[in-house]
């Protein structure tokens, strides 16, 4: 079956602009995660959804970042007033549910803020 997909694969935007990054999880997976990976670093947790609700958003760096998952499947990460420091690869992962399940990662969206 299809894995986790993310669109776009690359996004270049100007400082101050608004961007949306999309994640399509594996069908039937109730848990969805967003991570951010800066150059030379490991992925850092941003937010976790169980179904439609954000169960843990403790990793969002500030109020410019927001994520939704209105129907419990596709999720969108939204970044307002982008800054050059937001440049990174944004990773999405999904898993079958609560518990120590494997998280399946998508290929990521490379965001570059100029």
């Amino acid at each position: 079956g299809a894995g986790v997909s993310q669109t776009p694969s690359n996004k270049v935007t100007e400082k101050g602009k608004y961007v949306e990054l999309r994640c399509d999880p594996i069908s039937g997976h109730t848990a969805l995660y967003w991570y951010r990976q800066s150059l030379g670093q490991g992925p850092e947790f941003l937010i976790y959804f169980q179904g439609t609700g954000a169960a843990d958003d403790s990793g969002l760096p500030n109020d410019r970042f927001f994520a939704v998952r209105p129907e419990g499947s596709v999720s969108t990460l939204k970044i307002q007033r982008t800054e050059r420091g937001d440049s990174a690869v944004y990773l999405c992962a999904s898993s079958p549910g609560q518990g120590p399940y494997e998280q399946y990662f998508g290929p990521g969206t490379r965001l570059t803020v100029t």
Partner: protein
Amino acid sequence: AQSVTQLDSQVPVFEEAPVELRCNYSSSVSVYLFWYVQYPNQGLQLLLKYLSGSTLVKGINGFEAEFNKSQTSFHLRKPSVHISDTAEYFCAVSGNREKLTFGTGTRLTIIP
């Protein structure tokens, strides 16, 4: 809170030689430990995981890891590496079964 330390940022190894990639963690609660691999231009893929039970865990592609609670370590090993093992390896910990906390990664380079 949890944290993960991967002391070796780069490890060069000759083909068919053994390799050990080190991972140490800290956590105030019980942990679940993972190793992920990222091949060039690909997404993260799970190699193996420790949830409970036997402390020696076997994963894909001939890799294994041993959970050592007293030393708070979860080192990854392979007895004989191949060119195709060239990749970035990440150790991760989950204390509450949900979000993963990753280390900074170890780049494994196989020398022919």
